[in-house]
């Protein structure tokens, strides 16, 4: 096996500037760099977009979205949640009015049936999976729905290895079977949901045998899942990017939510829906309003009352319409209506689908300022680079995890060189653009957020410390709410039950990038245990598990193409082509290949993926590309 040393990105220690993109960077003083950044942003007022950071603190995200809305007067603020769980947020808020996972980790230890759908949590969320394992050891049965027979599936009662992009047929068939078997929780459907009759008609064609044809999963296995889920006293439905990273990701999420509505597996202890978030603060970034359609506290921009509250708190005017999301901002770059970007801690040049297109669009900007701890590929394209601190180890603040738990982040080490905290930098820029914001510390930012977000009001820093984190909603400084959301749906009083949860009427729509004779293999993507995203963070520790990027094939396909482990092959999609060595994985099956995006400097997997976006959430279809594999003229084998 190839031995690979850590690939080191070195910390940025000084601001970098340049007069034109053809020149190399030169070190500059903070004064000069900030002045240049302020000028570059100011001259593009009305054509500005902010990329906030799903890995930085809540406090930083709060200040970043405030910068976009108050200083620049735009709602064009978003983060990389767009490339992962935006469909979960969109789907959950459409059904329940709130974008968070409905359950807590502890509940999964006390449930009866666990469905892991499109989630290899054993690798991607190992400590969450320990809670799942506790549940299994307490007697819960787990079902894994995933095209790959992953390490998660190894713990399953049954593995449903569906074809990539057939989640909706599977979900609808499960729904139909529940209806036909008379296992619908009729009282719950009657009292807490709407649109059941339409849903029933919608799923009626999805018989188990039709679903078997489309998904490739035996009808009996689908039937067993339906009966197990519906008969369980308590059940948890968990998903990850296998559901969301599709061109119809929000529809996929709605299709899963439907099953919880049908069976009443939501709003009770042990029963709920759990999207597992991919970044340390992707939940919090959205909660803080660093998304184009919500103000802090996940409050809707279109609500005039909400806007009025923020307008008086911030002494500003909030645009009464949604801003552009990350995907739309990239499209606006193409059209020339977005000319300046302030990018904090994101690496879209490597994380976006169809990365070549993303780089071309970033290069065409009039002005790009990047604030990061490393000179990432995105930073290399910038006019000004500002060295920041690592949120998790060098600043004070909070982050919010997948179970909506707000937890304290603390400064343990001093940042290198002249690197400064994100909030300081943003405030310096705001001051140069006419807004003097004075925050004594992160707690002051947090207290301002508490004053405008009822869901966070009760979470003072001392309380967060005392309880080892508190889950939202937490409106009171004296009490704590239950660990699950939407208990209201079970309330006998219709007024307190509130808005009924609508069934999502969504239809099957196969992946955009079809396989055919020229591109016969379905490529799907995911994470490995020891690596993370574009590898900027995870690349520099000496992991004995790291083996770099491979194109993983099943043994049958390897034999068909006459390739062996370590042999470098050409991998081509309709958008691009890379050379990668082969790995053989028995978890795959004929016609299915797997790659990660952890080593983009080595193999740029995202030059293969398709930018077919979910129209509701803007997430691209990273999980389904069509590729072909060609042997190189001269075989080279890497070991």
């Amino acid at each position, binding site marked *: 096996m190839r031995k690979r040393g*850590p690939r*080191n990105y*070195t*910390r940025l*220690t000084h601001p970098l500037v340049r007069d034109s993109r053809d020149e190399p960077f030169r070190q500059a003083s903070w004064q000069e760099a900030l002045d240049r950044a302020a000028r570059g942003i100011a001259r593009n007022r009305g054509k500005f977009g902010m990329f906030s950071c799903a*890995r930085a603190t809540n406090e930083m995200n709060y200040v970043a979205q405030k910068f976009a809305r108050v200083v620049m007067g735009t709602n064009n603020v978003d983060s990389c949640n767009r490339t992962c769980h935006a469909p979960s947020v969109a789907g959950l808020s459409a059904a329940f009015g709130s974008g968070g996972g409905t359950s807590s980790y*502890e509940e999964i230890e*006390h449930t009866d049936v666990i469905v892991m759908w499109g989630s290899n949590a054993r690798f991607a*969320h*190992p*400590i*969450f999976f*320990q809670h799942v*394992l506790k549940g299994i050891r307490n007697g819960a049965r787990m079902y894994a729905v995933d095209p790959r027979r992953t390490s998660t599936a190894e*713990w399953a009662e049954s593995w449903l290895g569906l074809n990539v992009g057939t989640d909706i047929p599977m979900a609808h068939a499960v729904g139909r079977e529940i209806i036909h078997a008379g296992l619908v929780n009729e009282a719950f459907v009657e009292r807490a949901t709407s649109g059941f009759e339409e849903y029933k008609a919608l799923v009626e064609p999805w018989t188990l045998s039709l679903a078997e044809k489309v998904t490739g999963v035996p009808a009996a296995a689908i039937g067993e899942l339906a009966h197990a889920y519906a008969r369980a006293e308590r059940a948890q439905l968990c998903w990850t990017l296998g559901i969301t990273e599709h061109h119809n990701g929000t529809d996929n999420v709605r299709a899963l939510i439907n099953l919880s509505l049908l069976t009443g597996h939501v709003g009770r*202890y042990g029963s709920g829906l759990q999207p*597992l*978030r*991919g*970044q*340390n*603060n*992707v939940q919090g970034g959205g909660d803080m309003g660093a998304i184009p359609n919500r103000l802090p506290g996940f409050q809707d921009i279109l609500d005039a009352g909400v806007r009025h509250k923020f307008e008086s708190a911030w002494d500003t005017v909030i645009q009464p319409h949604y801003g552009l999301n990350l995907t739309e901002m990239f499209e606006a770059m193409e059209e020339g209506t977005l000319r300046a970007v302030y990018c904090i801690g994101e690496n879209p040049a490597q994380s976006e689908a169809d990365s070549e297109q993303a780089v071309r669009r970033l290069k065409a900007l009039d002005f790009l300022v990047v604030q990061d*701890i490393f000179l990432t590929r995105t930073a290399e394209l910038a006019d000004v680079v500002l060295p920041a601190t*690592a949120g*998790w*180890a*060098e600043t004070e603040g909070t*982050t919010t*995890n*997948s*179970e909506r*738990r707000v*937890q*304290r*982040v*603390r400064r*343990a*080490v*001093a940042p*290198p*060189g002249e690197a400064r905290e994100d909030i300081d930098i943003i405030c310096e820029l705001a001051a140069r653009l006419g807004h003097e914001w004075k925050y004594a510390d992160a707690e002051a930012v947090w207290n301002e957020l508490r004053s405008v977000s009822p869901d966070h009001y009760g979470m003072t820093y001392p309380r967060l410390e005392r309880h*080892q*984190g508190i889950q939202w909603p937490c409106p009171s400084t004296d009490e*704590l*709410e*239950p*660990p699950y959301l939407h*208990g209201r749906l079970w309330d006998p009083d219709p007024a307190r039950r509130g808005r009924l949860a609508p069934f999502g009427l969504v239809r099957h729509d196969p992946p955009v990038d079809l396989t055919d004779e020229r591109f016969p293999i379905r490529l799907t993507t995911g994470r490995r245990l*020891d690596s*993370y995203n574009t590898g900027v*963070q*995870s*690349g*520099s*520790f*000496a*992991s*004995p*598990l790291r083996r770099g990027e491979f194109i993983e094939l099943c043994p049958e396909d390897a034999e068909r193409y006459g390739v062996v482990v370590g042999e470098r092959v050409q991998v081509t999609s309709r958008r691009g082509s890379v050379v990668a060595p082969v790995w053989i994985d028995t978890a795959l099956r004929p016609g299915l290949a797997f790659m990660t995006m952890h080593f983009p400097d080595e193999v740029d997997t995202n030059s293969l993926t398709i930018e077919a976006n979910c129209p509701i959430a803007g997430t691209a279809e990273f999980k389904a590309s069509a590729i072909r594999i060609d042997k190189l003229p001269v075989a080279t084998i890497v070991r």
Partner: protein
Amino acid sequence: MTTTALGIPRRLLEFTIDGEPVRAPEGSTILDACRAAGTDVPTLCEGDTLRPRNACRVCVVEVEGSRTLVPACSRKAEGGMEVRTGTERVRHSRKIVLELLASSVDLSTTPRVREWIKEYGAEPGRFGADAGRVNEAPRVDNDLYVRDYGKCILCYKCVDACGDQWQNSFAISVAGRGFDARIAVEHDAPLTESACVYCGNCIEVCPTGALSFKSEFDMRAAGTWDEDRQTETTTVCAYCGVGCNLTLHVQDNEIVKVTSPHDNPVTHGNLCIKGRFGYQHVQNRN
């Protein structure tokens, strides 16, 4: 509505420790009650996140009516019990246990053991200079952590943490019998050829430093490891969205070790390879 499920109310049991009346909730161990009462009981194989293994016998106490000494870490408290922690019999037993362990195992990095050896008057040297020892060089077969069997007391905590109690990787078990018993991966291979996923949850529970971060091992070898100069700061992991709490041990502005609070509701003291070892990127400072 209540915040968390409180469970069935537990009765308080009344009994005595060293003649003093104490009360402890039903289900507590004698050790829990001793700690609550401020009575110091030495422990090695006991782990706050693990089920008792009863391997080391250093926590034994006397219970009225019991023929043998009982391990405080696993024996449940009962109403009316008379527990004695400082009798001659208890002290003698602890002394022998400490002598046997300290004569065969390198306890130089075991917290508090020197204090107990003094307290119980243990003389590990009395078995002679030729007392059996493992005499194995530390195994350094990867860049993340080191196994030093010369420091292993075979308490099984690492096996339990790797196995069904937390990690469920089952990479390690006990191989061999008697004095040849060792914690080993399958076929006693190097870690890099085993099922190990480098979560380091075994290091987290190791009571003697037999398992340690390579960073700690190297610094000890170089004589630069100094816990008095280290700070411990608990923050949240920067990788996935699970939100694991990390305690960063920092010396001279370098992260030298990562642990997790054992009472944390997210981690219960467990981490994955990224959280435990993936910190290097913040200190690639030049």
